[in-house]
């Protein structure tokens, strides 16, 4: 009888009755063939691999992370609550010591969902990983978390949520934004002034194969991860770097994914994108599961794999190497850069930007202000209005906020009530409270 060296949990929630639209890539049968493969391989009979039934995320779980306008209920379908809940189930099982590692194979995905939710972005409404992480922080008191986003699309939602959080290391490896949605995730994007350096973007050129991908993980990602010393490692496990994915241009294989998982050693993996539902997902998911559990994955090979046709061109190899150097340099210089930002004595830093909700066809304008703070993530103020109007104000006080930032946050909230906003929200994390005025 086959036994897994590491006790591994799976939440498998294919949501066979949920789709964005009938021929949309994010549709009912996305995990059908993966389920077929997982069942046919008898994965759930391996001693040490357990299947867990997902819980439902609650509205409070969502409000710890997001400002949903006008409310959580209108942003989410049942499937979103189950998907986020599935990630939470794995997280709890890991922290309760029931399992060593776990993989939430859930849909819909979430890593394009930002802190403000005014519609759907990149097939995502809410951020499954962030909802899980904040629930775990609240419940288990953990602090330092690393998220490695290996979806082929930049994890702009997760980046946005943790932009100002020095306790969360967010590393996204993705296809270069100049060639793929959402067109973001460049090395210059390194986090807000209180958390500069803990956001790391590694935009890989099209046609990167296993070789380049794994090299930059080994030489750049792992050393940074080790230095950050996270209590928990989360992998946003998108599977669209695969050579057969219809939406992307990368050349990653199932073996590559299994090896990546072996290197990253994530406690928790959460499924993100991946739309080659027949040619890639069954094999990639098998590779990830076996690798997590410590079971031999050397026979998980796509039937149509032709290594010669996806060999990595030398110019890609060189480019990826330079990218690694830049990334390591940025990481090493992060403290100096953070200090430089404070040189002119400013106390509040502002930025304005536009956010596109492509799945819902909405354009949002945001005016953001962050209190510069050396003691915590800083009080955050977001004014948001969409092309359909409806201005709102959202205030976020981070979990370990200092007294000054707590006060600033409360003041902003009180002032906002008299302002010209349809709704004013307060995410008061130290008190685990959400208020709407």
């Amino acid at each position, binding site marked *: 009888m086959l036994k897994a060296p590491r006790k591994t949990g799976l939440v498998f929630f*294919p949501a066979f009755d949920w789709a964005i639209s*009938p*021929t949309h890539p994010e549709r*009912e049968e996305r995990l059908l063939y993966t389920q*077929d493969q997982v069942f*046919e391989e008898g994965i759930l009979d391996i001693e040490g691999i357990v299947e867990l039934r997902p819980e439902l995320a609650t509205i409070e779980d969502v409000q710890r992370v997001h400002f949903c306008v006008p409310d959580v209920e209108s942003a989410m379908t049942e499937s979103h609550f189950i998907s986020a809940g599935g990630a939470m189930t794995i997280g709890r099982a890991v922290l309760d010591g029931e399992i060593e590692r776990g993989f939430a194979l859930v849909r819909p995905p979430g890593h394009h969902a930002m802190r403000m939710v005014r519609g759907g972005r990149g097939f995502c409404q809410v951020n499954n990983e962030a909802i899980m992480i904040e629930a775990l922080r609240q419940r288990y008191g953990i602090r330092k978390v690393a998220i490695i986003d290996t979806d082929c699309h930049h994890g702009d939602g997760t980046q946005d949520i943790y932009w100002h959080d020095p306790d969360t290391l967010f590393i996204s490896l993705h296809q270069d934004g100049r060639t793929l949605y959402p067109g973001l995730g460049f090395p210059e994007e390194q986090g807000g002034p209180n958390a500069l350096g803990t956001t790391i973007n590694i935009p890989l050129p099209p046609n990167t194969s296993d070789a380049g991908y794994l090299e930059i993980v080994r030489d750049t990602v792992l050393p940074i991860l080790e230095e950050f010393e996270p209590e928990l490692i989360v992998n946003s496990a998108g599977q669209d770097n695969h050579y057969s994915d219809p939406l992307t241009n990368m050349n990653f294989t199932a073996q590559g994914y299994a090896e990546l998982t072996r290197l990253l050693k994530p406690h928790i993996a959460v499924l993100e994108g991946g739309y080659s539902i*027949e040619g890639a997902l069954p094999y990639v998911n098998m590779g990830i599961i076996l690798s997590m559990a410590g079971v031999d994955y050397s*026979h998980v090979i796509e*039937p149509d794999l032709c290594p010669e046709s996806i060999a990595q061109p030398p110019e890609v190899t060189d480019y990826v190497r330079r990218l690694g150097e830049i990334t390591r340099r940025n990481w090493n210089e992060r403290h100096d850069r953070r200090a430089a930002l404070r040189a002119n004595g400013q106390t509040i830093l502002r930025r304005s930007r536009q956010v596109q909700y492509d799945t819902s066809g909405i354009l949002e304008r945001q005016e953001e202000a962050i209190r510069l703070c050396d003691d915590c993530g800083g009080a955050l103020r977001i004014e948001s209005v969409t092309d359909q109007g409806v201005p709102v104000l959202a205030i976020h006080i981070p979990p370990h906020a200092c007294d000054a930032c707590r006060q600033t946050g409360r003041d902003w909230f009180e002032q906002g009530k008299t302002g010209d906003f349809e709704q004013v929200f307060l995410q008061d994390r130290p008190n685990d409270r959400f208020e709407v005025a």
Partner: protein
Amino acid sequence: MIIGLDVGGTHTDAVLLDCRGVVERAKVSTDETDLFRSVLAGLDLILEGTDPGCITRIVLSTTLTTNAIVRNRVEPVGMIVCSGPGLDPEVHRTGPDYHVVAGAIDHRGREIQPVDPDEIVAIAAGFRERGIRQVAVVGKFSCRNPAHEVRIAELVEPYVERVFMGHRTSGHLSFPRRIATTFLNASVYPIHRAFFEAVGGALREKGLSAPVHIMKADGGTMSLEASIDAPGQTVLSGPAASIMGAIPAAPAEEDVVVLDIGGTTTDIAILVGGVPLLQPVGIAFGRFKTLIRSLQTSSIGIGGDSHIQVSDGQLAIGPDRCGPPRAFGGPEVTPTDAFVTLGELNAGDAARATAGVTEIGERLGLDEHAAAQTLIETACDRILAAVDEMVEQVNAQPVYTIHEMLDGYRIRPTRLLVLGGPAEHFAPYLAARSSMKVSLVPDWGVANAIGAAMARTTCEVSLVADTERGLVSVSNSDAQWRCDRHYTRVDALRQASEALRNLAIESGADDEDMDLELTEDIQFNIVNGFSTTGRNIRVSLQIKPGLIHGYRLPGSASSRLFRSEGC
């Protein structure tokens, strides 16, 4: 009239039923070394004075295959496996003659790699040289396309006595379980066939010409002829027979827990609307996880003869049985001795029983009466905890759609139905300690034989249609046929029920007992690029376990109800 006979580990029970109920009942000791004799002895007893021509149905349940597997008294099997990508197929090795060969099929039933006939023939010739007569051929995803298994079987057949194919076992996906199931079928085939051909012959000599059915682990039956093709289905049929025997006493409108309390163990099963729950995939049996359909049961090592010890001031009950209770000359104190001590069971040597319970009491600081009470109550609490655990486990089974997640039926049992040797004595204590109503199955002593006699023929088929490939496959058969783009779920349902009916008739089912139930009903678009190019339709149908029509037994109204003290 119909006959049910269950050869158990200790006793062989037999009943003769007519439309009004049990006419004859018999209990003889099982001779483990000669089950054939046990079967005939049981039959002779209940047939005394009955015209064999009046018998219309005979159902047998035996421990034959179970024992053969447990004691490893099975013939060697040659195993041929086609794997393709995935887990290393070596991890599924069944024995020395295990051959991984070329050939692979993917999840949609497409050929990835062809079979190499020369390779197969060379292996088959080796089987013949080594005297291997039974061969099992199993491919990954063979239930989506049996072509490779069929081809390999054709090549091997000239060299051996019998070839079993994986896709004939079940429509469920699980390559390792398909390997184990096909292996078991092949390995118990010679012993099963020899035994039941002998039984069939003996019955004919007695003038019994009624069809003979064999009990399966899923609480259903199959004809003797069908059992030769799938002998593995007969493992652990005894516990299933007992559970089926409890059904007449179960109110259909309640969720009911059945407790079969034996000497060493208590088996727990759940009835929903009078129908027992089935294992989601198949039975797990020793080192084998299989695709053999079976009732969902949970077993706890507590029974009337469980060994009782005190260690560190704590009572420990079971899981071992160290011979009979003290009252019957055994070495260790058991719950049965407690019943004797309390005067609730008038049997055996009361003085020996009481002396034993007194010893236990001394170590607990209790007199013999209190010790006996405590001992029984502890056993009941353990059993009830196992019931709760099983219900919780059933309710936690994963689901894969939002609909199931939000509207999932949760089992809330309101009644315990108890049967088995010591059941009568345990029942009042269980009633006092559980919020459920507790009742005793009437005729509990032969409920297993009644269950066998009345169990209907069960079977299951799964159909997968892939309208993009234009192909329909049905499990448990070699047939595949073409379909066009206009093939719908309705067509799939019609063809699946036809296939199920045919299979059921082949397995000995009666037309009036065909209670078809849909167990899977899903369909998906197959999308290429951004347009729909076909549909993947999956339906599964079963004849669920139940009782045949035309035989009435005293129902729930006549079962003895034990009131809990609070009422």
